[in-house]
Structures are given as C-alpha cells and as structure tokens.
C-alpha cells in the first residue's frame, strides 16, 4: 500500500510538470513563428538600418507577416542588406511595394513596416529572392535634431 501511495504521488508530480510545461508553451512562449512554417525570402537595401535587429518583425499595417532573418553589408556599395523571411500565405505583394524601418512607440523596438503597392496589370508579385527597390531608412534622432537646428538657423 505504501508503494502504491508513492506511485500515486509521483503520478501527481508528473501531471503537475506537464501542466507547468503546457502553461509555459501555450501562455508564455511564442512559437507561432517557429521554423516549421513555410516562408519565402525577400531582400531590401537600406541606407541606414538604425536599431533593427535579427528577428525583428515585418509588419503590414501592424500585422506581423514575417521576420528579419539576417542583416549584412553589401560588398561593393557598403549599404546594409536586410534579409526577410515572409510567411508563404502572404505571397501576393506587388512589386511596387515599399518597406521602411519604423519604431513601435517612443522607446519601443524597431521593425520593418511593409507598405503593399498597387496591384495593376503588368506588375508581378514579389517572390523568392526578390529585392524590394523602394526603401526608406530608419529615422536617426541625431540627424533629425541636426536638420531641425540647421533649418531654424536659416529662418
């Protein structure tokens, strides 16, 4: 009887652990964008990426459609190249789309805002390995203040 009780308590222990693991998996961790999802890759060249980081979000109107995979520097023109993996279910973006680096909130992290262009005839949609031509760099606060001082001196 004593050993049965021990086994029962060990069973309770295991159930508790599974409950804790499930809570961590479902409530605490985000695994919606884990590797198993189907994605395709887009590239974009920026003049300045500011504080953008690998794994930053790519958002269309606030909805996350992908993540930044890699950030590297072009070999010849020394501009940053950002590699993004976009979920395959969003594969209808036209070629005229533009991307800009935005900040969520005043102190928040930076993300890529994806602005879908107009879908017209003769314009193909973006696919695996395409470059997005129309990019807007990150806003650097120091540059902004510099411009402001410059223009206020003028006037």
């Amino acid at each position, binding site marked *: 009887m004593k*050993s049965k009780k*021990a*086994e029962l*308590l*060990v069973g*309770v*222990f*295991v159930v*508790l*652990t599974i*409950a*804790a*693991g499930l*809570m*961590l*998996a479902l*409530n*605490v*961790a*985000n*695994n919606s964008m*884990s590797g198993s999802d189907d994605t395709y890759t887009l590239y974009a060249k920026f003049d300045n990426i500011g504080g953008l980081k*690998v794994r930053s979000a790519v958002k269309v109107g606030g909805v996350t459609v992908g993540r930044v995979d890699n950030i590297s520097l072009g070999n010849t023109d020394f501009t940053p190249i950002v590699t993004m993996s976009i979920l395959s279910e969003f594969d209808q973006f036209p070629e005229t789309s533009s991307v800009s680096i935005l900040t969520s909130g005043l*102190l928040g992290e930076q993300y890529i805002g994806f602005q879908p262009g107009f879908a017209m005839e003769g314009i193909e949609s973006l696919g695996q390995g395409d470059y997005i031509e129309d990019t807007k760099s990150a806003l650097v606060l120091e540059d902004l203040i510099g411009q402001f001082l410059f223009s206020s001196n003028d006037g």
Partner: protein
Amino acid sequence: MSWLINLGASTLNRLEMFGRATLMLFGAVVAKPQPLKLIPLTIKQIHVVGVQSLLIIVVSGLFIGMVMSLQGYTILVSYGAEGSLGPMVALSLLRELGPVVTALLFAGRAGSALTAEIGLMKATEQLSSLEMMAVDPLRRVIAPRLWAGIISMPMLALIFSAVGILGGHLVGVDWLGVDSGSYWSIMQATVDWNKDVVNGIIKSVVFAFVITWIATFKGYDSIPTSEGISKATTETVVFSSLAVLGLDFILTALMFGIE
C-alpha cells in the same frame, strides 16, 4: 621543496577522486542496465527526491516571482514601461532563476539527504551486506538515486518557473494593477520557446546531473564515521552549489552570450 610535494600530492588526490567518481558513475549507469529492476526503484526515489521537494520549490517559486514583480514594478513604472513586467519576470525566471534557484534548493533539500543516506548505509555496512548477497550496490542503491535526481530536478525547475510567473501575475496584475492582457501578450511576444524555455531545461538537466553525481559520490566515498558523514554532507552542498553557479555562467555565455 615541501610545498611542491604537497601540491603534487593534492593534485594526485583530486585526480584519484575524479577517477573514483567516474568509475562509480559508469558502474551505476553504463554497465549492464536492467530496466525492469531499475524503474520501480527509480519511481520510489523520485518520490523521495522530487515529490518531497515539491513544497519548498512551489513556495519559493511563488515568493520569488512575487518579489521580482514588486521590485520590477517600482523601477519600470517610473519609465511608464510597466507593460514590460511580464517579459521581465518570465525571462529572468526561465533563463536564470528557475534552473539556478531550483538547483541550489535541490542541493540543500535532496542532495544533502542523498549523501547522508548513502553515507550512513556505508557506515552501518549495509552496502557491504548487499555485496555479500551478490547485489551490486552501485546498481541497487546508486543508480536509482542518480536517475531520480536527473529526472526530477528539471521537472521541479519547470514547476518553479510556472509558479513564479503566476506569483508575478498575482502581485503585478491583481495587486499593483498592471493590465492583465499586456502582462501575458507582451510576455508571449518576447519569450521564445526554443531560445528561452528549452535552454532553461537544458541548464536544469546539466545542474541535476552535476548535483546528483556529487551527492551520490560524496556519500559513496565518505569516511564511514559520524564525522565523515557530516563532512561529506557539507561538502555536497558546498561543492554542488559552487559547481552550479560556475556552470551557470559558462552555459549562459554559450547560450545567450553571442548573438
């Protein structure tokens, strides 16, 4: 000249001790496993080592989560960033405090008991009697305890983290008035299953292995007198706590140090 001799002697002693510890580990784990006999014994030991540590783990997890939430809130609120309370509590619990504090408590609660039990078995010549009856004490006594420790400590660490996050919710949301939705949703957006949760589990498995290895070896290797057992018990707690803290730095540097 004499200090050279002392240095050599103590180095040789250390090496010999490592050798004995490794031999014990191999004798208990590797040589001819007998799962049919091992599993019931291990379950019994999980009850002793794991289930009976549950109370202290749950209570300390709850209070550590509550304290972190309280401390974090007073700092974050001055930046208007109290929405980040959830990720702060969750990340520090999952990455560091869960595995480390559980390991320290486990070393104090279960490790010392393992050492004292095995040491007393040795002092009262129970281990020798087992050998007389052609029962290998490594496999009958040491192996189930090793496995029980390695299995139950990661489970305890998971429970610790989960209870701590709930404790943080209790203080942060129910008492201090952080928004419940932002507590959970920003936590979900920040915590990554593979990077944070799985790495925490890997850490606690490593700590569990080190602690139970040290605890069983110190008991098995103790001088069979009352003084020797008390020394072995102390050494278990001291050595395994130091080993956990040192290993934690190395593991953290490997897991989170280089992006």
